């Protein structure tokens, strides 16, 4: 018994001891979340999420990789630290043709690779061609398909040559490019790339034969013709001289400059790839061109970067190094943060159960809207949701406001495009909805209610669709609705389940319909959703690839598309095409807003929430902003040793001025007056 008594005494002591210590530490540090000491070595420690697939920016399209690539690779432009609008990077300035389909970039002449080799326009030509090459197996090529012949080259297609001339796309129902004045010197390549778009056919002989057989006009035209492979040299990218790059598109794309900060358009080193092949991105071979270079790669543990003295703007890089830690478990990330092992971490990381606690730390918790949305897609190809009325009934029966209150870190989403991310587009949307109201002669309150939560109207619509809703006491039921033909599919995850159960409860309460839930492992779920094999509804999340509403509106463009609903409407496609051909930005946004309005009336999806950034950083980390994609241009980031200058009330971080950041930004953008 002696031993037992000793043991219990020890525990009692430890218990009270720990209470005491806990009491002391939390009162001493209550302003900050855990250990908060600015690192003396001027090295930032950041958790990036999952282990990067590769350090080859052409291969991986993921966000964890994008953040790392932003430190070690540069492209023509970079994301602005606060608004993600493009700012000059290796391109110090650019010109845009009046059609917005040709761009000339003036590169700085002092940019260098980490091995000291100068960076020229030829490096960009090489990188673009490599990205689109079929054997690079890039998953992001689609983003660059606006560049002329990029898609045809990537897909291994062929031109059709008859005698001395090539058949043209416009003669066979293809897209017609408006004649462009073009910009820059008129070279032979420029003449070629400015000529009308050539017809391209499938490179595979069998598929091509099928394609030709299906079109009698085409069949007659290709008789005796020669098929010429589309080559890398045909893509609309040209090094006019060492420091001038010209990019020609197949169609006007006003958002194209913003797209160029994406990892797919960052430079890859020809010298290392030629020498080492697919092993070029290993620690011993890698050559980079960003503000930081690789010091050590320890997979699944850390990626250690140091400031690159060869970097053209090295004088404006404030950190001596960055350590990226790949950690996936959210609780572990928060523990690391609280323990002071890391200084900041990636978005969407604070667990729902921790949010109330995290929000108390007003100097650290980042709750800002994101360029990302959550919605439920309908399978519009199968009954019962091929009926638009039914889709509307189910959409109206979901209270988005209640949902985002329940989720704590999101804002309600009412359309396809998140509000609060593109301020000019929000204005255009307001104007269009007012115009439409006048055109349709409805009162403002009717329009305000459109697409919003309205349980009464939802029941009415469901009844009209042939499924009468009955009232039993204070509950509703809809006995004729075929619940066995629908389900709400989501990928297995605690948060997804919580949202699904919430929405399921809303339908049960407001419509009297209980939709079965179906939880699936991620890859299994993706297959069913991509192939539109699900019944009823499927969960969808979309993070914008660039800062233009088209990144959301394009989801339902053409077919197959990334909307995963089976929705395909030529009228909608044309509305988007017309909008993108519009050169006046304000007018274009209005046309896009009209298209969005039209799309939401077809209700291919139920808008749920706008994501929130939901991450934390220590108050001594400055120059790091909760921008809509959590994509951080690292050269602006610095560590403030003086606690009086630490961030206070992070809510104001986007409007507060930081003289150092403002000055740095001003110097960078001074070379490009027209840059937004």
């Amino acid at each position, binding site marked *: 018994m002696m*031993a037992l*008594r000793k043991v219990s005494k020890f525990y009692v002591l430890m218990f009270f001891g720990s209470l005491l210590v806990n009491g002391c530490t939390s009162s001493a540090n209550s302003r900050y979340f855990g250990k908060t000491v600015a690192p003396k070595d001027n090295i930032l420690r950041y958790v990036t999420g999952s282990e990067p697939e590769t350090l080859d920016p052409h291969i991986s399209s993921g966000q964890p990789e994008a953040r790392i690539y932003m430190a070690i690779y540069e492209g023509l432009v970079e994301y602005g630290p606060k608004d993600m609008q493009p700012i000059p990077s290796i391109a110090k300035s650019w010109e845009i043709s009046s059609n917005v389909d040709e761009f000339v970039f003036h590169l700085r002449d002092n940019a260098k690779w980490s091995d000291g080799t100068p960076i020229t326009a030829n490096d960009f030509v090489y990188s673009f061609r490599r990205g689109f090459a079929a054997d690079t197996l890039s998953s992001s090529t689609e983003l660059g398909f606006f560049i002329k012949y990029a898609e045809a080259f990537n897909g291994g297609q062929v031109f059709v040559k008859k005698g001395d001339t090539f058949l043209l796309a416009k003669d066979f129902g293809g897209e017609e490019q408006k004649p462009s004045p073009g910009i820059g010197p008129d070279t032979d390549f420029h003449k070629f790339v400015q000529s009308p778009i050539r017809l391209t056919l499938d490179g595979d002989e069998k598929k091509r034969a099928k394609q030709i057989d299906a079109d009698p006009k085409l069949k007659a035209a290709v008789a005796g013709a020669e098929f010429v492979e589309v080559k890398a040299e045909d893509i609309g990218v040209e090094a006019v001289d060492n420091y001038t790059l010209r990019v020609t598109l197949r169609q006007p794309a006003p958002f194209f400059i913003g797209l160029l900060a994406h990892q797919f358009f960052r430079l890859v080193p020809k010298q290392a790839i030629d020498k080492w092949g697919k092993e070029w*991105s290993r620690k011993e071979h890698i050559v980079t061109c960003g503000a930081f270079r690789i010091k050590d790669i320890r997979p699944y543990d850390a990626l250690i970067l140091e400031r690159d003295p060869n970097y053209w703007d090295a004088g404006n890089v404030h950190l001596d190094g960055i350590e990226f830690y790949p950690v996936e478990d959210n609780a572990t990330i928060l523990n690391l943060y609280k323990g002071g092992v890391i200084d900041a971490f990636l978005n969407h990381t604070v667990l729902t159960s921790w949010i109330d606690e995290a929000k108390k730390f007003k100097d650290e918790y980042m709750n800002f809207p994101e360029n990302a949305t959550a919605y439920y897609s309908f399978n519009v190809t199968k009954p019962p949701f091929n009926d638009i009325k039914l889709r509307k009934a189910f959409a109206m029966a979901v209270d988005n406001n209640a949902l985002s209150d329940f989720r704590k870190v999101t804002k309600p989403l009412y359309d396809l495009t998140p509000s609060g991310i593109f301020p000019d587009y929000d204005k255009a949307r307001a104007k269009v909805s007012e115009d439409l109201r006048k055109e349709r002669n409805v009162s403002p309150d009717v329009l305000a209610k459109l697409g919003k939560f309205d349980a009464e109207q939802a029941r009415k619509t469901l009844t009209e669709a042939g499924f009468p809703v009955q009232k039993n006491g204070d509950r509703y039921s809809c006995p004729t609705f075929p619940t066995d033909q629908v389900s709400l599919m989501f990928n297995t995850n605690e948060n997804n389940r919580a949202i699904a159960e919430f929405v399921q409860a809303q339908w049960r309460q407001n419509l009297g319909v209980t939709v079965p839930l179906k939880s699936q492992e991620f890859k299994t779920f*993706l297959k069913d959703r*991509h192939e539109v094999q699900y019944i009823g509804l499927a969960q969808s*999340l979309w993070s914008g690839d660039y800062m233009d509403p088209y990144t959301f509106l394009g989801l339902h463009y053409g077919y197959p598309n990334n909307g995963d609903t089976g929705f395909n409407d030529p009228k909608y496609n044309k509305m988007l095409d017309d909008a993108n051909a519009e050169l006046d930005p304000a007018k274009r946004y209005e046309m896009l807003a009209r298209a969005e309005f039209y799309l939401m009336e077809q209700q291919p999806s139920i808008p749920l929430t706008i994501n929130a950034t939901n991450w934390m950083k220590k108050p001594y980390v400055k120059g790091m902003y909760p921008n809509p994609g959590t994509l951080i241009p690292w050269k602006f980031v610095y560590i403030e040793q003086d606690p009086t200058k630490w961030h206070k009330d992070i809510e104001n971080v986007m409007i507060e001025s930081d003289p150092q950041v403002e000055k740095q930004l001003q110097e960078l953008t001074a070379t490009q007056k027209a840059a937004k």
Partner: protein
Amino acid sequence: MLSFIIRRLLIIIPMALLVVTLTWGLVRIAPGNFYSAEKKLPPAVEANIRKKYGLDQPWYTQYGMMMSNIVRGDFGDSLKYQGQSVNEIIWRHLPYSAVIGLLGYLLALALGLTAGTIAALKQNSGFDYGSMSLAMLGLSVPNFVLGPILVLIFSFWFYLLPPARWGGVSSIILPVITLSAIYAAYIARLTRAGMLEVMRSDYIRTARAKGLDEKTVLLRHAIRGGLIPVLSFTGPALAALLAGTVVVEKVFAIPGLGNIFIQAVLNRDEPLILGVVAFLSILIMIFNLIVDIAYGFLDPRIRYE
């Protein structure tokens, strides 16, 4: 004895290949691909990927190619982590798991054997009740609960040890304790039961009757017999510990093999899955063999035919 060992070693290879074949079948049945992601790939890009990795070939060709490579010890490159071979990944991450696993194993043995033996010798004493209750607690508290509790106490209340990540001796203390808890508890209970049974057996009574002192009885005679149940448990347990323990590696962000394996399955990274499975199955079979050999030393009644 030697022929027994050779026979068992020879059987390991076909067994491992059988396990690989079954795993390959299971991976193929699972929907989705290593390249499937939130964003759909353009059809031409998807076709290029399928062609490059031979996914456009009939299944038997793919199986044949995979098997002929594996027989030569080449598992190929990871599909997800480009330019890294499966062998390289396994050998790179095994040491992390092995260090944690081995230390956890030794700690569990030390704690379990000591506690179990003392508890058996002082049956129904305070120590017996105390240690066995603690062992029961150790068995019932899963390591994903124990880990965070230890982090709370040692990292946030006392600020003594880092909450996660690999780096230095201080960083492996918590994972090792977390890992060993359940094994120590199990070993303690097995040792206690084994020792209690042995201490009551005839040959112990004979040893005592010969006039041997308690220490000799215990160390020369009792422990050997009492350890047999422990041995059959700890052999495979050591294999499992060395090859990575998913939960502990996740909670403490340790770059070990267990974590890699789970990610490989979620990523549908077929070569990596097959490599880890083959490695694990060989490891488990070897440890089972070692356990079988060790039986002979502990119990003279066991003979190898």
